[in-house]
């Protein structure tokens, strides 16, 4: 017989639609994963009108923990695909998303990447979609703080690695392309002492400082920038992370201009109300899970068991998400969506974010990347 068995997806009209969620339940990104899954459940409820069904077919969700490790995620994806799953979603970490995307293409299953922000997921291949924003959209939002960039001096402060590279490249393209001179200060992600970098930034005297920093050392970094007077000497823009991180900005928080993917109260769409009723306070990655569920339902509804049909059904689809109007761009599967400018206020452990400005999906649209595979 055949040395290996792969279940073929049941073509039965009442057979459940199998959906595999591969995301971080444990590991360093566990709390992102938690928001994602809460958002997904709420979204599924919302999109199916509470039935959890598409037509007569139940949506059967299998959750697998990847602990942030691409190798585990790949194993999980292969396992799911082997069992006949046609839709995979999740990927909290960029590394996971990038490694799972090719698997989806090789096996012709739908993959909807989650909170992973890397630009490289966009246009990765025909079968890969995303339910969250990408770095480029962050940077476009940042640009909106500077007014007319022509002749301005912009410094990117980012950590070493692909995340930093992507942000630096995006700033060079977006703000530099609009006439600003862009330079960068890079630091190892493992750095614990930021004075040398703060000094370098200060010496550069920028008009705008764009900071792309993730990880547990961020508070120390902000404190150092604050102590060395960087925050008061220029406009500093960075992305607003999950609520739990807000108090760690301390006094520095009010001196920073935030670009935001989402925070509670940023929008009051129907979907946002539905989500809020489920999870209480909405956080950064709830909308990604919510959108993923909406996309899953759309794909199942229109595509049945045919993945190519699912892809066609999603390409160019516009829907009302938590953040407002979302559009899946047909050419490269970028998810066009509103982005926000925000201010943080408060002290101690209670901080609140307030929207300064909302940018529409078209305003923040990244340039089209050619589809790679």
């Amino acid at each position, binding site marked *: *017989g055949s*040395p*290996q*068995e*792969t*279940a073929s997806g049941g073509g039965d009209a009442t057979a459940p639609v199998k959906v595999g969620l591969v995301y971080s*339940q*444990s590991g360093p990104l566990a709390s992102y994963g938690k928001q994602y899954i809460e958002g997904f459940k709420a979204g599924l409820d919302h999109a199916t009108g509470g039935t959890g069904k598409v037509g007569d077919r139940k949506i059967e969700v299998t*959750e*697998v*923990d*990847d*602990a942030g*490790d*691409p*190798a*585990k995620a*790949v*194993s*999980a994806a*292969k*396992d*799911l*695909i*082997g*069992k006949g799953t046609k839709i995979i979603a999740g990927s909290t970490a*960029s*590394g996971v998303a*990038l*490694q799972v*995307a*090719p*698997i989806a293409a*090789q*096996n012709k299953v739908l993959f909807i990447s989650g909170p992973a922000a*890397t630009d*490289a997921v966009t246009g990765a291949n025909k079968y890969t979609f995303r339910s969250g924003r990408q770095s480029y959209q962050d940077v476009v939002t940042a640009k909106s703080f500077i007014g007319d960039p022509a002749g301005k001096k912009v410094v990117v402060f980012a950590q*070493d*690695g*692909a*995340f*930093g*590279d992507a942000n630096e490249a995006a700033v060079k393209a977006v703000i530099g392309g609009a006439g600003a001179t862009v330079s960068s200060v890079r630091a*190892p*992600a493992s750095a614990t002492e930021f004075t040398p970098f703060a000094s370098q930034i200060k010496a550069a005297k920028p008009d705008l400082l764009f900071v792309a920093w993730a990880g547990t050392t961020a508070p120390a970094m902000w404190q150092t920038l604050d102590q060395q007077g960087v925050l008061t000497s220029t406009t500093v823009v960075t992305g607003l992370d999950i609520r739990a991180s807000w108090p760690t900005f301390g006094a520095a928080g009010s001196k920073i201009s935030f670009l935001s993917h989402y925070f509670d109260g940023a929008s009051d769409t129907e979907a946002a109300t539905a989500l809020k009723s489920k999870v209480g306070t909405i956080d950064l990655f709830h909308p990604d899970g919510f959108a993923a569920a909406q996309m899953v339902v759309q794909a199942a509804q229109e595509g049945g068991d045919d993945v190519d049909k699912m892809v066609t059904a999603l390409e160019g689809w516009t829907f009302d998400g938590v953040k407002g109007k979302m559009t899946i761009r047909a050419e490269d599967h970028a998810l066009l969506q509103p982005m926000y400018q925000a201010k943080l206020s408060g002290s101690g452990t209670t901080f609140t974010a307030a929207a300064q400005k909302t940018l529409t999906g078209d305003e923040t649209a990244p340039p089209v990347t050619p589809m790679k*595979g």
Partner: protein
Amino acid sequence: MTDQMVDAPPAAVPAELTPGHSRWHGLRPWLPLVALAVAAIVPYSTLVLPGIFEGPLNSPGTLQLLAVCLVFGGLAAGYDLLFGRTGMLSFGHALYFAAGVYGTDILVTRAGLPLWQAGLFAVVGATTLAALLGAVALRTVGIAFAMVTLAFAQVGAILVARNFGGWTGGEEGLPLDVSGLPPALVGVTNTVNLYWLALAYLALVVFVVHRVSGSPTGRVLAGLRDDERRIGVLGLDPYRFKLVAFTLSGGLASAGGVVYCLIVGGASPHVTSSELTLSLLVMVVLGGPGTRWGPVLGGVLYMYLDHRLTAFGASDAVDALPAVLSAPLSQPLFVLGTVFILAVYFFPGGLASLTTRLAPLRKALRPPR
């Protein structure tokens, strides 16, 4: 004290150098082949082992998991050539594994080489790297040696993390471009081929380590583990022999990297970390250093737990427990760490020592002759 810091591992006598006595003597040489044959036909079995594997034995998920386990079994056996058999504690073994993974990935994805060339270059390159760095690091001994190898590996990790020239993909890793790969290695339906590849790698490593340990050179390596000064006085250059062991072990690790890169379909910076070396150490000790099958078992078991515990943590049984228990139990690393500590206590000498510990039991059960 410095030189006592790394005492030779609590190793057993190399099995290869002691003649067997048991009734099995005649059969014994064939057992590994039988095991290999059984492992090779696993993909034809539809056996379902509930709780142990998610699907039947021949489902892609199970085969993928097994393939990863087998590669690490081989890696651990290769590492044992250094640690258990020669008594060298290297904290930088991950570097050579990573060189295999990233070398293959970069050559295929960025340079567009065909797989066999990329794999060959990666292994040759990594082996050369091991020889060069080993030549420097072996000027020290004991814990200093461990730290120098760690330093080298750390430089590798930093270079990968920095995403030098955009080659490595930094912390996001580098997915393997499969368009140029043989179709038989691509896609979930072909997981079985990856499984066989991993099995072949494991068999290769075990065979090489076995042959080398049983060779005259292996005898010298065992001697080095006990008393290096004495080896010198006998007229053998300890440095040369250690360098050969180091290079060989590095080369085997890089070959494992090539296979792993194919199985996982890419590279991620995790493979450069010192934790990986540390887990190799854990695998070897878990299995039993200096034994033929111990490190293999240790590697397979460790990776199995590492992968499966995430499912265990998320299972309903754990969720149903009170929060005091379920919170830690849903952390795979907590369970892994605890299992490991218990193993150190209850199987000193590793899994391989189980056979000797069970010997009295076996004797008792055997019908009197």
